């Protein structure tokens, strides 16, 4: 069955944020057009893997909205129509012109990387936008007619206090976004960022559980549905959950285009090589880019299905996943009040959701990796 979900990676950024671990490329405005051509060429090569009218298309980055406008418009026009078309945006890139460009090219959802509304914390992160840029971006998008806006927030930033996070949440809620994502800052060991903020990161790590509780508490009380570990959708007549991301969490197939993009189709997963030059030259020669393949036997996909499915607030149907779950552990976790099971489904309790990673690790049957140890 062809994939219903298409991801397109646009790697360009104006500067690199210290904590970011995505494939990004700084500058090189002149290469945007070439890159868009390459992506469209890759789409042609893979089109048979994709549904003619996919359910969702998602442009992520990098900073997709930094892409040179003509190139971006050409890309949007070249992509297949979809029921949901999301673009990630950095607040400072959202000009009235960009908002109009997105709207007229069918973009119906924009995810804004706000991170925080505090100047000093944005500086720590190396973000270019100021607090006012987020508010302006939201207004401009709304003015252009885009009525599904998501804000990303980060917590655990060096220098952050629980009060800072409280104000961030209030600022975000004041903009009445349809959707919010709140992530803990994951500082990768060995990076310059981690090096620079080591001690403060340790202090922040001790506060993470309070931050997480604060986020869930505040947003659910403000009328948002905590539908995924880190995602919140405003309650109301419309289902405002991110349909594209739901595709991942429900274990659906997806096609990824662009440098470093990952695709998962049936029993195969592959990641395009992260080199921009290699990507461009391959596609300009009419070839597929270099890829890192990974076999996904059914038992691995089943375990991923459990891992991803338990991130959601809806019970996970167990049919076909019995082998992926460690029976005695399931009973133990249920007895501890972390899991609830019915004959057909499995769901985390509220307390279980706060411990979802640990619970899932316990629950999964021993995979190949752990068997070999």
């Amino acid at each position, binding site marked *: 069955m062809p994939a219903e979900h298409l991801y397109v990676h646009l790697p360009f950024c104006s500067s690199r944020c210290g904590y970011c671990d995505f494939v990004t490329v700084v500058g090189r405005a002149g290469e945007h057009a070439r890159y868009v051509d390459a992506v469209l060429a890759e789409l042609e090569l893979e089109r048979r893997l994709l549904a003619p009218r996919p359910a969702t298309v998602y442009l992520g980055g990098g900073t997709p909205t930094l892409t040179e406008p003509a190139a971006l418009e050409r890309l949007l026009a070249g992509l297949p129509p979809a029921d949901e078309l999301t673009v990630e945006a950095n607040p400072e890139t959202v000009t009235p012109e960009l908002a109009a460009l997105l709207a007229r090219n069918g973009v119906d959802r924009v995810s804004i990387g706000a991170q925080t509304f505090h100047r000093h914390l944005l500086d720590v992160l190396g973000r270019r936008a100021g607090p006012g840029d987020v508010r302006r971006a939201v207004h401009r998008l709304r003015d252009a007619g885009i009525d599904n806006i998501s804000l990303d927030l980060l917590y655990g930033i060096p220098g952050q206090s629980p009060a800072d996070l409280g104000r961030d949440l209030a600022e975000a809620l004041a903009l009445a976004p349809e959707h919010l994502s709140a992530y803990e800052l*994951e500082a990768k060991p060995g990076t310059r960022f981690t090096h620079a903020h080591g001690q403060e990161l340790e202090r922040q790590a001790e506060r993470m559980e309070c931050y997480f509780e604060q986020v869930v508490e505040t947003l659910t009380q403000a009328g948002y549905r905590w539908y995924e570990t880190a995602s919140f959708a405003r309650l109301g007549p419309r289902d405002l959950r991110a349909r594209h991301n739901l595709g991942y969490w429900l274990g659906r197939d997806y096609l990824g285009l662009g440098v470093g993009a990952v695709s998962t189709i049936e029993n195969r997963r592959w990641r395009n090589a992260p080199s921009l030059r290699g990507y461009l030259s391959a596609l300009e020669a009419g070839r597929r880019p270099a890829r890192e393949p990974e076999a996904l036997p059914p038992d691995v996909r089943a375990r991923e299905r459990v891992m991803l499915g338990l991130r959601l607030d809806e019970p996970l149907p167990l049919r076909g996943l019995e082998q992926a779950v460690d029976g005695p552990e399931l009973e133990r976790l249920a007895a501890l009040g972390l899991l609830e099971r019915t004959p057909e489904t499995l769901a985390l309790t509220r307390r279980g959701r706060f411990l979802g990673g640990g619970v899932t690790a316990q629950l999964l049957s021993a995979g190949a990796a*752990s068997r070999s140890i």
Partner: protein
Amino acid sequence: MDQQHIRNFSIIAHIDHGKSTLADRILQLTETVSAREMRDQLLDSMDIERERGITIKAQAVRVQWKGHELNLIDTPGHVDFTYEVSRSLQACEGALLVVDAAQGIEAQTLANAYLAIENDLEIVPVVNKIDLPQADPEGAAAEVADLVGDDAARVLRISAKTGAGVEAVLDAIVERIPAPAGDPEAPPRALIFDSSYDQYRGVVAFVRVVDGVLHRREQLRAMALQTSFEAQEIGFMSPAMRPVQELSAGEVGYVVTGLKDVSELRVGDTLTAERRPAAEPLPGYKDVKPMVFAGLFPTDSDDYPELRDALEKLKLNDAALFYEPETSQALGFGFRCGFLGLLHMEIVRERLEREFDLDLLVTAPNVAYRVKPVNGEWVEVHTPADLPDAFDEVEEPYIKASIIVPKEFVGTVMELCNDRRGRFDHLEYLSPERVHLTYELPLGEIVLDYYDQLKSRTRGYASFDYDLAGFRPGNLARVDILVGGEPVDALSLIVHRDFAYDRGRQLVEKLREEIPRQMFDVAIQAAIGARVIARETVKARRKDVLAKCYGGDITRKRKLLEKQKAGKKRMKQVGGVEVPQEAFLAVLNLNEPAKR
């Protein structure tokens, strides 16, 4: 050779007082080895010995000096090896007592010198390192002469390093040490004072022939164990193995037995000939009993058979090592091992890890207890968890500790001994600066960190030795540790009732630090019987999620969870609680205050 021209001797010295250097010099001077072959400290063949400067295994080397055959039987230098020293001494008629001219007599020298005197050995006192700038040969000579009841003028002054005076030592061996006096015509009797295992030739016994003659290719029998075998080869070490046709009364050498089973030949046994057996074995060596016990568990439970084989092999070369299978609910299958002391334990552990490539978890050591259960017979208990809940009486081993320190540390040493339930016995000035203290202490109070404490409180100046002083009644209790409501056998400890509350509280505090937060509250309790005396709680984690997980992250996140799961499997599960291995060693550091 005619017994009149044989001399068998040992060297008694404190670590670093120059025993090995003297042995090397003797080998050189007697042209037993050429200068080219000379390798420093030839007698210490094991790595660990070299690194620690300790001789663990006794070996015998034959040298020729002015028409005499001298057999140097090497002895271990440390407190834990009193038994090995005693075996070596039994094979000798005399001993060199070597003392460092700068440091004087140390506690261990005292102990071994007394052992030699008890064995009626002729003692030849030697002061070594007279070439050192800080040497005080006269002071040291006076101390030694006083100890052995000899004239200070007869104390030899040498430098093993430069070779000065070593010839006089050899002459003194010939002149002062008596010749062996066995009966060459009697049925053969040879004392096994050491053994080693050769992969190809089986058990090799080191023997001192007391009576009669041992012949090559002769059928021999170990009298205690009734093991019979053919002497495949007989010979002596010089220092390499030199085969001969026979070894006769008074001589020291080796016998290649071909035995493959390590348990068939016991050190201390007497060899005799099948064709003409002796009526009585030689008086047996003192039967040493291990006093310090610890559980040895493979970190990976799959290594259990390897650990068993390794212990079997070590046991061959180490008569004092004791082991029996032990099953711990917390640590799985392993062995309860008995050691002569802490250093012995440390060496066995290192050899297991180094020579046999094993990853081991060693539980906190404890001592042997004798207990009389209610209406029962006295039994010996080697594991705290085995102490019954109810008993009429319990006894613990005591030691007589001998400590030599510079006088300014007397106060701090006495304080330490008093804290450890010590009873002051005696104080004596060896010189205006140095004090010899004796204390009676429960062995259980020194097995954990006493020696470290002694060293650190005296800035390394204290020297320490002890003798076992038998079992005495103790007001003792078993403190159990419960994790998540379940007792953890490997963490039980036996302590004096007066200390039970404190130790229990310290231990649960330590454990609270060591046990990671789980997905539920974990109670850690210390209890005597049904009475809980201390409690701490490891609060449940409130958050454990993977921050985000989109299309590009799934593989990595899945592997993360799989690793997490595998990591948990390596932790020991006690009542559903993951307990890291470090926690089982928490008791070792009880006297350090818990980080709060």
